[in-house]
């Protein structure tokens, strides 16, 4: 029973990563926009929803006790709006500027989460975030299975919506922009406007994923949104194959499997004094894996179909 509970929890976590990866795939895989601060957008979603839906807390502003669905919609709006502003500032410039700016967004979001204690709870984070299946919390197995079903449902919806978008005229313009910007512009497509849209929608998806995760776990803190998260998601997308939504989901499952598995190995085999160091080695391994895949098989497992 415990294994089943753990398996359900593992898969739920992996599916939330898959949602973020799907958002990144829209930005990078479909449109070619390089977001190195995606942890910031995930955090914006998580905090927005948490501030709106938690019960009133005298220690900080917020705690508006709103329904979860309002929190999630606001999370998408907020993360999408920030992404739109970043896009407007940088998408007329070379792609590196977008990378540097998104990197900065993640740094600033991390600062706000840590220091604006009256809004975000500071380093101790925020608790009492309402859970969508809260009534089941007494029975771990049922609770985790319900969460898993819920996460499956959202991921599937997201996947179908993104597949539909990619086939739509809008998605075809994005692909055209990625493949040959000049030709697309010559056909009268506003390069910058389409890219800002794609970047904002991708940001909104990341915000939603952050909010969903916050509500499943019930607690958020700034350290959930460090650059390591950005890096994990990138590895998931590259392993799965950028450009393919199925690849994004598969990559999330595989990389999270490797990550969680090696983490379990480390905590089982390495003496307690050396665990922090061994955990660092885990990141080294994933970093090397990312670089090797970029060198050897840049299209990943399922990517590379360029229609």
């Amino acid at each position: 029973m415990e294994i089943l509970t753990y398996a359900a929890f593992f898969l739920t976590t992996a599916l939330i990563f898959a949602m973020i990866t799907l958002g990144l795939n829209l930005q990078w895989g479909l449109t070619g926009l390089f977001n190195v601060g995606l942890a910031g957008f995930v955090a914006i979603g998580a905090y927005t929803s948490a501030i709106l839906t938690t019960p009133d807390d005298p220690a900080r502003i917020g705690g508006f006790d709103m329904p979860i669905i309002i929190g999630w919609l606001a999370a998408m709006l907020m993360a999408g709006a920030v992404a739109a502003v970043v896009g407007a500032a940088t998408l007329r410039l070379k792609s590196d500027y977008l990378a540097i700016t998104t990197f900065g967004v993640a740094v600033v979001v991390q600062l706000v989460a840590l220091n604006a204690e009256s809004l975000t709870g500071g380093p101790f984070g925020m608790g009492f975030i309402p859970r969508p299946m809260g009534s089941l919390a007494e029975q771990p197995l049922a609770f985790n299975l319900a969460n898993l079903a819920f996460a499956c449902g959202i991921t599937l919806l997201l996947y179908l919506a993104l597949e539909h978008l990619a086939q739509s005229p809008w998605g075809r313009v994005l692909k055209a922009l990625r493949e040959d910007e000049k030709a697309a512009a010559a056909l009268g497509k506003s390069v910058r406007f389409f890219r800002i849209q794609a970047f904002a929608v991708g940001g909104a998806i990341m915000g939603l994923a952050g909010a969903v995760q916050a509500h499943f776990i019930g607690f958020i803190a700034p350290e959930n949104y460090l650059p390591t998260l950005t890096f994990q998601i990138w590895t998931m997308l590259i392993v799965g194959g950028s450009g393919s939504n199925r690849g994004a989901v598969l990559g999330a499952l595989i990389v999270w499997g490797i990550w969680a598995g090696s983490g379990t190995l480390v905590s089982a085999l390495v003496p307690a004094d050396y665990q922090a160091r061994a955990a660092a080695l885990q990141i080294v391994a994933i970093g090397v894996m990312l670089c090797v895949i970029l060198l050897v098989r840049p299209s990943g497992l399922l990517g590379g179909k360029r229609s």
Partner: protein
Amino acid sequence: MTLQFLVDGLLSGSMIGLGAIGVTLTYSILRFSNFSHGDLMAWGTYATLVIFSGITALFGKVAPFAPLSFGWPLLIALAASMLVTGGLALLLDRVLFARLRARGQMIIVVMASFGASMALRSLLEFLFSSRPDYFSRAIQIAMPVGLGMRITPDQIALLALTLLLVVAVHLLMTHSQIGREMRAVSQNLALAKVVGIDVDRVVRFTWMIGGALACVAGVMIGILVQIRPLMGFDMLLPVFAAAILGGIGSIPGAVLGGLIIGISEAAAVQIIGAEWRAAVAFLILMAVLFVRPIGLFGVRER
């Protein structure tokens, strides 16, 4: 509010500026923003620490230069580590960046540098743990220099070193053959090849200079603050902001950008509080991108 923020800002601005020279060179000559540059700083610092400890182990404690906290062992360690860091940058280029560059998709190179950054930093954490280290635990007395400002002998020495290095790099770029070749490659790669410039040599020099200056910047942080695996990564945003503010490709611009950001940060620390320091670079970066994306001394890309 005292004028002390000018001294503090000048110092952190020097470190940012030295880092920004490397970033601006790799961007203008190799045409990608190198996210692993901050980690080169950290690697340079740890290399200096290792060599420095080695010298101390061999020759025992050496008396520092009178008012300073360090003596010749640290200078020798620094000089050797500048070479080591340049070599590390070269190695990284050989193994990773050059191969991806050859395929022509520059943004993939940026991504690889992001992965390399993560791996390099965590490798430091594995080797040295995340506990901070120090070159010296001696405490220096700051001397008053008027107008309410104070400065320590170490700080004066490091400012002088920065000035020396910046002038040297500037002269190298403007008056030497390799400097002219570097500028030629950054302005027009195809034309540079046509006139017979050895592009590989230019690339090697770029990495050596960038790595060596990153090492100095890191060691300055090590002397004045502390040595941590994350020390370079934390500098990345101000360094990029300085390079963009100064105008990509411009060495005087990178240094000036670094000083502006350093002084603004120090002023913000005094006015708002130290916890918001890192936001300053981001605000300046956004302002530059909206108002004048080519920066102070930048040229429009062709």
